[in-house]
C-alpha cells in the first residue's frame, strides 16, 4: 500500500496554487516528478487502491487531498496501462476541480508523455528565453 506521506506534496501544492484552470492543474501535476515517480514505483492497481482508501476517509486537509490528485495523475502514466473506465470509479467531486480532473485523466490515460519536458515547470525555465519582436508570440530559445 502506498503511504500518503511518501507522496511528495510540494509539486502538487505548486501546481494547485498557481493554477487558474483545472486543465493547468492536471497538466502540471501529470507531468510532475511526483507523478512520474509514483507511476514508476507502483502498479496501477496499487495506486488505484490507495486513491480509494484515502478518498474513503473523506479528508478535509489539503495535505491529504493533494496526494489523491497526484495519484490520479500518476495513474494516467503507469507502465501497466489502465482502462480509461477506471476513472469512472474515482469520485473527486467533493473537491474543487475534482470532476474536471478525473475527466482529463480519463482522456489522457496512457497517452504518450513526449511533451513532458516542455510542460514541466521545473524544466521549462529558459534563462536565455527571448521575446520575438515580430509578433505577439513568445519565442523560447534554450541556451546550453
Amino acid at each position, binding site marked *: 500500500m502506498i503511504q500518503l506521506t511518501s507522496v511528495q506534496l*510540494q509539486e502538487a501544492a505548486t*501546481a494547485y496554487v*498557481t493554477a*487558474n484552470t483545472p486543465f493547468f492543474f492536471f497538466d502540471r501535476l501529470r507531468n510532475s516528478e511526483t507523478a512520474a515517480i509514483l507511476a514508476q514505483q507502483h502498479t496501477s492497481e496499487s495506486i488505484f487502491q490507495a486513491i480509494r482508501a484515502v478518498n474513503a476517509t473523506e479528508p478535509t*486537509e489539503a495535505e491529504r487531498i*493533494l496526494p489523491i490528485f497526484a495519484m490520479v495523475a500518476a495513474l494516467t502514466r503507469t507502465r501497466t496501462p489502465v482502462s480509461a473506465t477506471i476513472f469512472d470509479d474515482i469520485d473527486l467531486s467533493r*473537491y*474543487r476541480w475534482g470532476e474536471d480532473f478525473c475527466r482529463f485523466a480519463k482522456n489522457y490515460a496512457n497517452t504518450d508523455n513526449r511533451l513532458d519536458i516542455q510542460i514541466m515547470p521545473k524544466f521549462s525555465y529558459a534563462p536565455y528565453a527571448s521575446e520575438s519582436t*515580430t509578433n505577439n508570440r513568445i519565442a523560447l530559445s534554450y541556451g546550453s
Partner: protein
Amino acid sequence: VLLDQAHINPIAVETRAGTLIKVSQTPKPEPCFILGDLSAHALFPMAEPRTEKISGFYNCHGLVFAARRAAIDETKQIPWILKEDGYEVVTLDELQPGDIAVYYDERSNEATHSAMVIETPKMNLMRVTRVVSKWGNGREYVHRINECTYAANARIEYRRIYT
C-alpha cells in the same frame, strides 16, 4: 467545495456591458499553499515578489479584470470580458505600460494567465516585456513576460482599452 473553501460570488463584479462575472474569494488559503508559492518562485528566481503573503482573495485574472477584489476562476469568461470591456489587440511594437497580456494554452486555448504590462521591450536593455501578475492563489510578482510557469506552451496576446 473542499480544498480551498472558496466563497462563490461573495461580491458582484460586472463587465462594462453589465454582464455578471462569476467570481470567488478564498479568505483563508491552506498553509501548504505557502510552500507551493515558494516552490513556484524557486523555479523562476528572477521574478520579484511584489507582495509578502499569498492571497486567496484574487488570482491573476482578478488582478487584471476585477481590480484585486476577487478571483475569476472560470476562464471561459475571459473572452467575453475582453469583448464586453472593449479590449483590442495591440502588437508588440505598439505596446505601452498599462496594456494587458493574456496567456492562452496552445492546446486547450484556455486563458491560463493574465498580466499587466509595466515595461515594453523598448524600455529596457533586455528588450523584453515586463509585467506584474499574480500566480494563482500565491503572491504577486514582477517578472519578464516569459519568466513564469504559464509561458510554456503559451500564446500571448496583448490588449488595450482605448476608450
